[in-house]
């Protein structure tokens, strides 16, 4: 198996860390070696969070170097743009279009321009899928399932070094019993939405 590096970026509270663990669990079930690393600031919620997942990376550090990630899964629009520099020129990215405005932006001390950001993302990645994960998670039953919606979306792209079944299995094994159905639904919805995007493109 060749190395595969996945970067997950988002905002504290969105479940990015769990998503990275689920991917790593799937990789291990496939017989791969996996590493992950998280970069989390001081706040419990609302700060930038970046998770690195490196598959078959025995002889590497846990942080994905700049311009090297094979895939970027961004949980928030601005956080997608912030992390594009780690994505390889040939990599693909899945972007949740949800916007989480920090207090600094609401206070007018910092800038948040959706259109500019979207343009920048498009200009700097070869393959990009914009997904409204928030609405899909809402439809699946809980906005908190947005992380699993995005895992579904990322799996649909068909580049991860394991099958859809192994990914689903890792999710089911690692979430509490009472959320299993919700997560399964969320995963399928993210998967379907992305398949549609791929067919259109």
């Amino acid at each position, binding site marked *: 198996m060749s190395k595969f590096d996945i970067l997950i970026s988002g905002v504290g509270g969105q479940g990015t860390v769990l998503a990275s663990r689920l991917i790593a669990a799937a990789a291990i079930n496939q017989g791969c070696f*996996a590493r*992950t690393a998280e970069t989390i600031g001081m*706040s419990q919620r609302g700060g930038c969070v970046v998770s690195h997942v490196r598959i078959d990376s025995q002889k590497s550090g*846990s942080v994905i170097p700049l311009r090297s990630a094979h895939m970027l899964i961004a949980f928030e629009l601005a956080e997608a743009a912030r992390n594009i520099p780690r994505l390889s020129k040939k990599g693909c990215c899945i972007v949740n279009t949800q916007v989480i405005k920090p*207090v600094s932006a*609401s*206070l007018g001390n*910092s800038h948040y321009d959706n259109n500019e950001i979207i343009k920048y993302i498009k200009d700097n990645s070869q393959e990009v899928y914009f997904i409204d994960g928030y609405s899909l998670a809402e439809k699946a039953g809980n906005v908190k399932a947005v992380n699993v919606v995005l895992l579904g979306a990322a799996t649909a792209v068909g580049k991860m070094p394991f099958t859809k079944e192994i990914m689903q299995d890792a999710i089911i094994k690692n979430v509490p019993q009472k959320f299993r159905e919700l997560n399964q639904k969320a995963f399928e919805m993210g998967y379907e939405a992305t398949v549609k995007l791929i067919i259109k493109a």
Partner: protein
Amino acid sequence: MSKKLLMGNEAIALGAIRAGVNIVTGYPGTPSTEVLETVARNNPGDIYVEWSVNEKSAMEVAAGAAYSGARTMVTMKQVGLNVASDPLMSLAYIGVKGGMVILVADDPGPFSSQTEQDTRHFARYSNLPVLDPSSPEEAYEMIQYAFELSEMVELPVFLRPTTRICHSCATIDLDEKRLEHKIEGFVKDPRWVIFPSLAYKKHIHIEKLQHKLSDIFSDLSFNKVEGKDVRLGVAASGVAYSYVVEALEKLNADVKLFKVGTPYPLPSDVASSFLEELDEVLVFEELDPVVEEEIIMLCASKQQKIRILGKKTGHLPFAGEYTFELVYDALAKYLNIEIEEFENTLAPELPVRQPVLCAGCPHRASFYAVKIAMKSQKAVFTGDIGCYTLGNAKPLDMVDTCLCMGAGITVAQGIKRAQPDTKHIAFIGDSTFFHTGIPGIVNAVYNNTDITVVILDNSTTAMTGHQPHPGTGKTMMNNISEKIDIYGMVKACGVKHIVKGNPLDFNNAVDIIKKAAEYKGPSVVIFEAPCIALFKPPVKYTINENCKNCKKCITDIGCPAISFIDGKVSIEPSLCYGCGLCTNVCPFNAIGGEENE
């Protein structure tokens, strides 16, 4: 054997359990916290685990147990080691019987610390050996060896992972067989009493031991020399080693590489064989040039003329976390390999996400109440270490100083002495109050210094992930214990004006502060309201049609649940914790609550 994805801290904990650790103590501090928590979660039943009141106590409890032949581990972060440094220095002389590991996590970057101090200096300072893992896998091996080593030389041993090790995960082959470590019990012996005459003898002993340790370390696989270039060498310790290996692969280069797993004492034999025939060495290590200096001294003692490059020569930076990119660039330059520069398309201006108090955090209400109460008066607000340090962010802007655990109360006293005509209000959390807050209050009473201390009691140690403390009435062993009452404690310290209140009962909270600040002499306000992580929001608030979009709710309190999107102020339901503070702020009654299902 089983393969599992484990965080470095979890690997260390499971390694300690496998090594038969009997007693684990500590004080929470990012990035070290999960070590003790993982031991508690995986406790086979016979390990005693406690969160101590501070690092000094934790170190002393672990030492006492190790005197008795138990295998013990004490956990903390780098700044916590300062608090424990008093027992540490003496313990290095006294030694231990059972294996004792001092786990101190360093935080290059720093991601969540006041300093970037390097624990390896403490190892050198106290003459205690230190192991420096380069990956979570290695940390799992090293912790097990650390107990063995400690028993062999009868000294405590440091394991010093950094944030990148503590909070990274790796696939680890877990060996579930556990060593049984029998505790022999305390045997009375003059060796446990530190007298000046004993100290002198011990000093000679530990200085001599350094050579023996260096020899022991030279035989370990944690230290090794790889590669073959005979002119250029690279030495790397800790996580920097993994960056070097990855960078060499990408550069397709081969150098003589010295992996340093034990920065102090330096394994001289391995180091000497590495240095043979080299002209130059580049040293990679995060934070201070500990290995670099050890190598320079080794060369000097052997009168070897080798150029040692690193921090001291300006080839690498002292401060900050090392990254793959930094190591890659420095290596390419050193080896004279040309690398292509990345061209960068300019990113649009992106929003800044500063660390802020959570939506619904009761500290926001406390800070806001004090702010309103002190309006139009001259006041200085001293802060402390914990979530509430985030009260410094705009728009609250209520933390003027922050030094170290417990210092808010004493710093306020200092400023008061220099600036008597100002009101001085010190904020401190409940866990920090027990940690080192009490002596400060005693000091204010004893010297009758007119300050107001606001204890923000949210019933937990929130910033590090909700650990219990003496005020919560719970222990890490899941026992219910006697709750230590903060009010009673403050009273016993001799404070005459003490008031308890709920910061979310807003007008009353403002009143309480006004009265406490008016009181001549030390006064204490205890604001009690639980951290939002401890309960489910009972009410959700929404903005109704009365809203005039004046944004006062945003500009006054800065709750992250309230934002201005598409020209309208709105509350994000998945974030609101129903604290109701915003309803006190809105001048138009535009915020209403409804019960949460």
